[in-house]
């Protein structure tokens, strides 16, 4: 009897073997690392000495008084809002135009998507040159006799905007391709009918196409929240978080504290906060979506 129950229980649940390989792999790499980080965040360790000194919640206390930490959060928030809005607006407009009657659509599609496939690491030297006084932008301004000096990367008030424009350059292709795919599934006849009824282009876009792509917008929102919190390559490679932490993000700050300065306990505490924010962000976007949808 006992045996029968477990057997049928197993039969009912044997579907789990399909997901176990992936799940166990994630547990070994990701959950192990998370646990390791939680553990480390209550210690003081330089990575070399054989003993870790337990310091309780001291690392977390330090964090709340750390101005750079708050600067990172502020930068992340600005970066998230600006890149999300601009990148998706551009992606949406490109998708609308390329679904209309224009010449050479494939050429334009490729030109917009190429930035997405090029590594930030490969492009970083290019952007450092482009936004320097020796770069192409400066030549164009000089040619037009505009009195503008391109020193934006070395100024704390402009560097973040340069990085945001690089991010937008890099990822418009992704939002474009997702909007483009979503628009292919909107019924063309319904749109034509609306247009026959005298609805103008802008009205059709606003009232039919944009709501029709809602799923894409929400998914992009969730990816943007996670992406903004994960930001590392672009600021690290172009400005290394400077000047004066003006482009510091949690990712670059954790790297600076942990890998560069060997404050591993403090870096771990920052990592825990980052992780909590990312999970909360993803959860909230998801929940907001469920409520409306």
């Amino acid at each position, binding site marked *: 009897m006992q045996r029968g129950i477990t057997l049928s229980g197993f039969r*009912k649940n044997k*579907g*789990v073997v*399909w*997901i176990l*390989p*992936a*799940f166990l*792999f*994630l547990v070994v*790499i*990701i959950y*192990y*690392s*998370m646990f*390791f980080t939680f553990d*480390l965040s209550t210690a003081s360790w330089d*990575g070399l000495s054989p003993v870790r000194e337990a310091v309780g919640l001291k690392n977390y206390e330090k964090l709340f008084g750390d101005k750079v930490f708050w600067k990172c959060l502020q930068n992340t928030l600005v970066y998230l809002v600006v890149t999300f809005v601009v990148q998706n607006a*551009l992606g949406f407009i*490109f998708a*609308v*135009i*390329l*679904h*209309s*009657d*224009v010449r050479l659509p494939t050429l334009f599609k*490729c*030109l917009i998507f*190429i*930035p997405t*496939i*090029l*590594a*930030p*690491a*490969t*492009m*970083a*030297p290019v952007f450092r*040159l482009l936004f320097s006084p020796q770069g192409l932008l400066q030549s164009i301004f000089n040619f037009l006799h505009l009195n503008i000096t391109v020193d934006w990367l070395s100024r704390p008030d402009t560097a973040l905007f340069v990085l945001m424009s690089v991010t937008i*350059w890099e990822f418009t292709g992704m939002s474009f391709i997702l909007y483009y*795919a979503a628009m292919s599934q909107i019924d063309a006849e319904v*749109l*034509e009918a609306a247009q026959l009824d005298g609805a103008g*282009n802008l009205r059709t876009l606003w009232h039919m196409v944009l709501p029709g792509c809602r799923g894409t917008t929400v*998914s992009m929102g969730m990816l943007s929240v996670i992406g903004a919190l*994960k930001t*590392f390559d672009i600021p690290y*490679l172009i400005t290394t978080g400077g000047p004066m932490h003006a482009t510091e993000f*949690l990712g670059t700050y*954790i*790297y600076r504290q*942990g*890998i560069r300065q060997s404050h*591993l306990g403090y*870096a771990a505490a920052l*990592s825990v906060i*980052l992780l909590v924010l990312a*999970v909360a962000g993803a959860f909230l976007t998801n929940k907001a979506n469920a409520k409306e949808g």
Partner: protein
Amino acid sequence: MLEIRTKRGKVLLQLLLILMTIPYIVPLIQMVAGSLGGRGFQNYKAVWDTGVVPVFFRNSAIISAGVILLVYIFNMTAGFGFSKMRFLGKEVYFWLILVALTLPEVILLTPLFVTFQHLKMYNTFLAVILPQTALQMPFTILLTRNFLNGVPDELMEAARIDGANTVQSFWSIVLPLTKPIASAVIVLTLINSWNAYLLPLLFLQSPDKQTVTLLPQFFQGEFTNDQTKILAAAVMTAIPEITAYLCMQKNFERGMSAGALK
């Protein structure tokens, strides 16, 4: 999508498209123009003569192939399990996988660094392949599950009535149907693993193991900040990537439309 009847309107729309695309080309022009500064094509020759470019490319190819293979296997089985199988705690497992989607890779650095040194895996390809796979898998599983949710369960029922077991129907019914989503998954995984910077930077120390994303840094050491050669190296890295994308462009677009992120 837009309905434009007049000739003038069509010209204006085309013009708008061209104007909007220009900013996307400017950095590419800068890259090529910069790489030809100073000694012109000699820059390319100098970069090529170091002999490291093919090595870095080979390493990136090995790592990407490894990640794609692992992601594909884990992803297909798990996507199928989550979409078509019933088992206890399915939602919990799924959420635990989604939490991993939010994980920033910088968090992995210290734990994996310590562990890989213990296991003598430091400075091996596996030290990059394994964490890369773990980072990419959650998103592809989400895509694949969504795609398979759109495949009617009746197909599997019919196969079962014909006497096929789960493995057989997975192999001969589900796998062939997943081609569109598989190509999207492969292209996305390829882009991400080819472009990965942080993990190779930290876990691959010797130049014979490093990847193309570390080339600019390598040449910064080699040519003491001669920007023209660093940009020449960037162009040489970009060209094969762009070519590969152009070859896969049609498939990729079809895959993305096939149900990703609806």
